[in-house]
């Protein structure tokens, strides 16, 4: 009995040695030569593999930094710390980037925005948008079928009362949601900015009012009462110019449509 157990151990051990040795040999002679710095830069990256840098995952980006001298400030999840670390390692200069976050420029949830019909079909925003133009009465607003939430690698987007909301503290600004939104409602804004115009409707006032009670009607009051140049008009839609700091928070009160929101 003992003999059998010993024998088994011996055989397994021998087998392990042989396979291990051949693996070692293979690793040595069949190895693909690679700049060792690639591995180390990869270590510095956050391993989120979100693709927000434009490369297929962190390893590819690390390769691009080492081989093709790609910009080192492209990693949104890593932020400044990551960039500085890579800068120090690669001996290049870091150009700081501001931390950004995605935001859904629509606040027309199911309590304030009307729907034109009862949609029945694929649970996907692009599909809903392509079916008779989408069920939301406002042709600019968030449909709320959650395509952005499904592509978000960090689960930063939730659907609340029929529209998408981004959690700033979780967002890594990878821009995946921006690419997937059929209505182009999601934009990257500085994470520090607090005041936003949460509407994307370029329709004229009466048309906006018909569809949604919190849509921008193009009254321009924010341009008058807000800080100089902080609010700019794009046709009948007010937009925030994020390069100008907003100090006069009374615009929130002044907005008759209540689509200027602080968060």
């Amino acid at each position: 009995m003992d003999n059998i157990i010993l024998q088994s151990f011996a055989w397994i051990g021998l087998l392990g040695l042989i396979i291990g040795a051949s693996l070692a040999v293979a690793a040595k002679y069949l190895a693909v030569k690679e700049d060792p710095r690639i591995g180390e830069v990869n270590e510095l990256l956050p391993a989120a593999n979100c693709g927000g840098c434009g490369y297929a995952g962190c390893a590819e980006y690390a390769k691009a930094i080492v081989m093709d001298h790609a910009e080192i400030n492209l990693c949104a999840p890593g932020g400044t710390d990551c960039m500085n670390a890579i800068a120090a390692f690669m001996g290049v200069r870091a150009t700081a980037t501001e931390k950004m976050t995605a935001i859904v420029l629509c606040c027309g949830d199911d309590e304030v925005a009307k729907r034109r019909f009862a949609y029945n079909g694929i649970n996907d925003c692009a599909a809903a948008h392509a079916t008779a133009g989408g069920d939301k009465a406002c042709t600019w607003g968030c449909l709320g079928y959650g395509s952005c939430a499904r592509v978000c690698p960090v689960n930063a987007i939730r659907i609340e009362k029929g529209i998408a909301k981004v959690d700033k503290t979780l967002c890594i600004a990878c821009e995946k949601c921006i690419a997937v939104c059929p209505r182009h409602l999601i934009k990257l804004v500085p994470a520090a900015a607090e005041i936003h115009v949460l509407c994307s409707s370029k329709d004229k006032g009466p048309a906006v009012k018909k569809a949604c009670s919190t849509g921008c009607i193009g009254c321009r009051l924010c341009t008058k009462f807000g800080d100089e140049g902080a609010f700019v008009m794009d046709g009948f839609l007010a937009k925030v110019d994020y390069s100008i700091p907003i100090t006069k928070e009374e615009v929130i009160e002044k907005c008759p449509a209540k689509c200027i929101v602080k968060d």
Partner: protein
Amino acid sequence: MQTIKSPYNFRGGIHPAYNKKLSNGSAIESLPLPAVLSVPMSQHLGAPAKPCVKVGDEVKKGTLIGAQNGFISAPIHSPASGKVKVITDVATASGRPCQAIVIECDESNETEFLPPIENWQKSDKDDLLTRIGETGIVGMGGAGFPTKVKLSPPMDKPIDTVIINGAECEPYLTSDHRMMVEHAKEIRIGAEIIRSILGAKTLRIAIEDNKPDAIKAIEDAFQDIEGDVAIAVLHTVYPQGSEKQQIYAVTGREVPSGGLPMDVGCVVENTSTTFAIYEAVIKGLPLMQRVITVTGDAVQKPANLLAPFGTSYQDLIDACGGFTEDKPAKVISGGPMMGFAVSSLETPTGKTSSGLLLLSKKRVSQYSSQACIACGRCVEACPMNLIPSELSQFIEAEDIEGAEEIALMNCIECGSCAFVCPAHRPLVQHMRRGKAAVMAKRMAANAKG
């Protein structure tokens, strides 16, 4: 002239409940002229027409109000005399907003028609084509492809067979059926005009065998016609009216993948289109009205109404006695298989509006988000021999290349797969989504290189 049973059967297809009895016995009635018509500038495939009248202009019945805008486009004429009230955006049946000219109709009934071409046999082929183009005739079966373009194939694609499509395989719809019963003589002349324009030797009138009265009427009207002419009696199976399936059923030829009927020497024209060609050539009438079947279990008196373009669905429903006690839950422009569900009764009719179907809640089937159970029924039903189950799974997984590889672009969106799917998957919507993604990808590739 003979009547033949079609010797070929395409594979697949389905047998839906046809429900044609609701309206196939009702003779075509003219709708009383509505007070207001909103005539959409896009009633066809291709570029929308450009409005060529101003607000306040007086127009007559037949006045050109929208000019043809490009090669694949068609002009639009005023269907009634009156005054242009406003030019605004309306939602068409497909849900896309488009410009429309709103006309306040008056009773004067003044007309502005083109001169008739009585002696069409002696006329130049190009004159006939010009007439078909300037009267705004497009395929009235559903696609709305400009007929002039369809009847002008390139020199290297000789056409030997013209098929007049009287299959009307969509359930509920009876407008083509009534046209054949009541206007067989006119359809005959229209068919002869098409045949002479194309120089085709063979003419077939394809009718499904569930319309014996239409077959009889066409037989009587075509009795003494010369040449290789026959009525091809087709099996009643959906989608027998689809161009590719019909060409196969009548001639045994398969339109190559990605190709057009002219690649196999065929042209298929709808019966209503054929009638429109007769009116344009012999009477000089622009295309301004059509027969539309108003039907379904949510409308009081189903009917076949001759209505001017731009009539709102509400006006059509009013003319049919309004809703039944079961209010409609779904309003469909066209038939139940390929029609568009619309959200508003303000939607205006157009050249391709063959039906208005009102279904009550109990007739509406809901799609679900269930997974495919791989039963293979869609594979059996697909008349293009595709694998809809697999295609939809590829598209769901965003593997558009994978779907393209297994012939996604051959899908004709007939809906047979979704009709039989026990999991009630929105298969056609998946296909449309996939096809749109492929088209976008191709556009991007073209733009690059």
